[in-house]
């Protein structure tokens, strides 16, 4: 028996040691908790997002203790990125926890397939809504919130180069007639009057929408709610203005093949005097053009309505856009924290470094270091936002189906070819067809 005791002790020690070592392995060295591993997918759309990813790599270890984040920054366009996310979800969501969802019709199939987690409870637990501005809360039709607001708040406007305008004795147009006059003057001087990404479709569609807004700001809403066809709304006037601008040679010859970065390049380099874009670019242009940028609202069709320009503007916060959490994530609470941290870091970058005050958060509450010196145009736009009387989402963001969104973009891209066989009538017929897509 005496000889058996050491053997028994040794035998008993083996499983005890194994358990102890096992627990060390599970919780890290001597009781430290094993970090939760999460995967984040972001579309690396531009330089801004490259900066954001670099900032996230620095900030996440401080903001998310106990969470190890793998950042997957995917270069390319939004559509390709959405395809990747949808394919991942369709394949079981392996390796997907949090992603940047562009919202609108892009998000519809993901929500229908219950691929995204409803975040209401987790956000409440994190006291998230204390940090975000009230208008950032845009629930889905079922009343639940599926995305942490990520993108800045934006509206469709036109930017112009004040130096070029001044050199040619021009002032920001209040009416379409003023704009046409400016186009003629600039064209004669050898300057490309307006830059727009005709190839991408959506910036040109924003332009058609912008010109139709002063007459009837509810035009897009009526179509989305199936109360009218595009051809029955002020879109016919908006499209007519764009067609007339095309006839005047207001755009580059290659406009239908100009993508977003090409159009921005034309404007920022001073080769184009104006650009049709969203207000998200205001801070960026202000920095890149060293303050030589200003904006105007889409001009009114008639002289009598000139004062109304800028009262009703398309834009605002997109529905179901932002950081989404995969419904099948093994760590939903931690994933929600990651979604919040990602949004906060990005919005801090926009506010602190890119000089964009139009973020969806209260700057002090997300730890913005200090208020930067915003350019005069940025400050003016910030005060304008409070005066907008009517706001509704961009046409490409609010179409009820993905096919509808694509139909609008494709038709507008075709309109920009200014071909003889494709006029306003054909364009509106294609828009009506797009609105009926399911």
């Amino acid at each position, binding site marked *: 028996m005496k000889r058996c005791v050491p053997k028994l002790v040794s035998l008993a020690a083996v499983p005890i040691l194994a358990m102890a070592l096992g627990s060390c392995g599970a919780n890290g060295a001597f009781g430290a908790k094993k970090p939760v591993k999460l995967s984040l997918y972001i579309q690396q759309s531009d330089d801004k997002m490259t900066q954001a990813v670099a900032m996230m790599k620095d900030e996440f270890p401080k903001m998310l203790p106990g969470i190890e984040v793998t950042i997957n920054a995917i270069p390319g366009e939004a559509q390709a990125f959405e395809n990747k996310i949808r394919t991942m979800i369709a394949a079981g969501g392996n390796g997907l926890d949090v992603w940047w969802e562009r919202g609108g019709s892009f998000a519809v199939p993901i929500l229908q397939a219950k691929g995204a987690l409803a975040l209401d409870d987790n956000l409440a637990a994190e006291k998230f809504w204390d940090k975000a501005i009230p208008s950032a809360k845009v629930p889905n039709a079922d009343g639940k919130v599926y995305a942490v607001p990520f993108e800045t708040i934006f509206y469709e406007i036109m930017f112009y180069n004040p130096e070029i305008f001044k050199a040619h004795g021009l002032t920001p147009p209040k009416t379409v007639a003023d704009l046409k006059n400016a186009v003629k003057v600039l064209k004669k001087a050898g300057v490309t009057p307006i830059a727009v990404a005709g190839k991408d479709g959506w910036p040109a569609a924003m332009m058609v929408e912008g010109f139709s807004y002063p007459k009837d700001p509810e035009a897009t809403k009526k179509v989305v709610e199936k109360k009218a066809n595009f051809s029955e709304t002020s879109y016919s006037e908006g499209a007519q203005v764009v067609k007339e601008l095309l006839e005047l040679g207001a755009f580059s010859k*290659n406009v239908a093949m100009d993508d977003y970065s090409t159009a921005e390049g034309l404007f920022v380099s001073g080769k184009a005097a104006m650009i049709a874009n969203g207000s998200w670019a205001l801070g960026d242009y202000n920095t890149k053009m060293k303050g030589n940028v200003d904006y105007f609202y889409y001009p009114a069709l008639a002289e009598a309505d000139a004062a109304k320009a800028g009262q009703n503007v398309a834009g605002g916060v997109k529905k179901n856009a932002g950081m989404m959490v995969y419904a099948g994530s093994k760590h939903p609470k931690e994933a929600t924290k990651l979604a919040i941290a990602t949004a906060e870091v990005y919005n801090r970058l926009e506010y602190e470094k890119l000089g964009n005050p139009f973020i969806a958060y209260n700057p002090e509450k997300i730890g913005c270091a200090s208020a930067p010196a915003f350019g005069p145009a940025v400050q003016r736009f910030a005060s304008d936002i409070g005066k907008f009387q009517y706001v509704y989402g961009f046409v490409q963001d609010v179409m009820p189906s993905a096919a509808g969104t694509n139909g609008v973009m494709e038709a507008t*891209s075709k309109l920009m070819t200014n*071909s003889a066989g494709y006029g306003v009538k054909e364009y509106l017929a294609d828009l009506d067809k797009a609105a009926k897509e399911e």
Partner: protein
Amino acid sequence: MKKILSNKLHIALFCAPALLLFGGFVLYPLLNLVYMSFRNSDGLSISVFTGLRNYARLAGDAAFLKANASSLFLCAFAIVGDAVLGIAVAILLSTLKGPLQKAFRIAFLIPMVLSISVISQLWLAVYHAEWGLLNSFLDFIGLGSLRRSWLIDERTAMICIAVVGMWWIFGYIVLLAYSGLKSIPEQYYEAAKIDGAGFLTTTFKITLPLLSEVSKVCLVFSAVGGLYTFPQVYIMTGGGPGDLTQTVMMYMYKQVFSNQRFGLGAAVAMVAIVESAIVIALINRLMSRRDLQF
């Protein structure tokens, strides 16, 4: 060897790996494609059986019919511009000797080793409406009146796309045909020369008949390549502006990945498969080998 092949179990064992791969990566996706083409699916939710609705929709969709016509045009263009011209160039190339022949061979092969992304970007610069190489060249040779927005003009957009595909694949066809030419025994040409046959006679009586199998491969490659044109369209124009340069493959891509209509996309794929099968059958019929006696 005979003993092994007489044993059916051995045959089955040897064939099994290839059959498994073929079944998994060709047969199953093909059958699934047929199945999907009768269903409505967004790729995420459960699909619903819709019978022939996807096919009926395609038959009535002007955009699909236009894309299909464009793809058939690209197919015809590739047959003439790649296969026929490629074989002709290979024959002419074989008549050259020394470093000149080598230089031409290398020149024709360069596009083939370039990535299609690079080629597409390069041709975008060629076709640019304002500062493109093509318009500048036209100005240089005094034909500035022919300047145009090549990829935006509906009369030229599709031809421009076809030229890119042709430029890319041309070297491959030349290489294929040239290899075929080199396998023709030299004695036939020597005998023909003694009989007093000229270049055209030897080409039509000896070269082309003996090159018929290689020519068939060249024709099939070119035709299917043209019918399935996608990467250069995706990179250069995205099928646009509007639907100016939309091919069947681009239409399918948009339906599946942009519009989330997987069922409709599967139906498009089925139509494309049937069309390519018809084209291949036609080529086979036209090029059916007749017995040759020399």
